[in-house]
């Protein structure tokens, strides 16, 4: 699902994307209108109106809010995803998840509550 090659991610970014690599650490509340790509470490909160991508070596110790999410690394905190969240086989989420659509690869670890909006009503006859 995810390419683990650093170079290929950085070759196709948009000018309003935020990229957090291995050579820095972030503390605080990160807010962006564009997509956020995390390959390093973030402590605080992460909020984007677009897509959040968490690389396989990345660690986010923060609450996360995004339109879409692609996680291959570690998230310690609650995730609030408006549309689709994909967890790869190397993903670990220690926190609650809220998403409209959830894709989980075999091997992904979730320790928390999962809430999905738009669930069809089950009628007992």
């Amino acid at each position: 699902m995810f390419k683990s090659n650093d170079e290929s991610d950085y070759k196709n970014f948009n000018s309003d994307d935020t990229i957090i690599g291995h050579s820095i650490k972030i503390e605080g509340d990160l807010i962006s209108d564009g997509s956020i790509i995390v390959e390093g470490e973030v402590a605080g909160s992460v909020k984007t109106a677009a897509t959040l991508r968490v690389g396989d070596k990345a660690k986010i110790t923060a609450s996360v809010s995004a339109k879409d999410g692609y996680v291959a690394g570690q998230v310690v905190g609650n995730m609030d995803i408006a549309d689709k969240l994909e967890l790869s086989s190397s993903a670990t989420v220690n926190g609650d998840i809220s998403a409209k659509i959830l894709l989980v690869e075999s091997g992904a670890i979730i320790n928390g509550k999962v809430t999905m909006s738009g669930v069809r009503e089950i009628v007992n006859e």
Partner: protein
Amino acid sequence: MYYYLYDTYLQDQKYEKILDHIKTKLLDLEIQGKNEKLTVLKSVDELINDETKKGMDTLVVVGNDKTFCKVIDAVVKNGLTLGIIPVGQENKIATVLGIGNEDEACDILSARKVVNLDVGLANGYYFFNKISINKNLERLSIEKDSIKIIPRADCGLIELNNFYVSDSEEQTQSNLMKLSPQDGLLDLIFYKKDNKRNWLLGRKKENKKMDSLFDGSFFKIKSFEYLPVLLDGYKVQKTPVEVSIEKQKLKVIVGKNRVEHII
């Protein structure tokens, strides 16, 4: 009223013919003006301030990227229009602005297509290209909005770009060229240390590997002690440095072959 400022390296004899050709061409186009050579005796800022009082409204630098960057602070503070006639090596800024050789440059000056570009402001000093820091990176931090960015040990170079230039064909560098100098944002780029090659030897060939990217309109570069940061490759300031963007404050004469994202 045009004012032509010639950089010191043009005093070399090898540029004599080119300079004569430029003067003839400007005469033919009827845009000749006062000529001045940069010297060590008088500062660029003093020259520009004095000539502005005498009625100069357009400054044309004859030189290269360094010449262009040296005049930015005085040009913006005096509200002048800036042009460039590129001569010699290191003229990436002119190329991006659609100005090729000295012949084309004179025609472009005559056509006078002016665009407004952003400039950066660092502790009260305007800069055009970038702020760069390549030493003691683990001893500083950069604040942006409500986050603090801390470089790790494997960070080799930090650049805070207003106007990005690169001649590298590598895809990442090409993507960075799309960063607009009219979007009201500065672009903070962190580069990793290149382990394969000695960082000093790497200076001959641009071999930077981009690691992190942020954009914003205000950054604060801080450290426990005073550390140097370099503005446009020549002006040194010491931390703490507050850096902001001044939107479309610089008026520049450009060519029609400029990069597409400069409107």
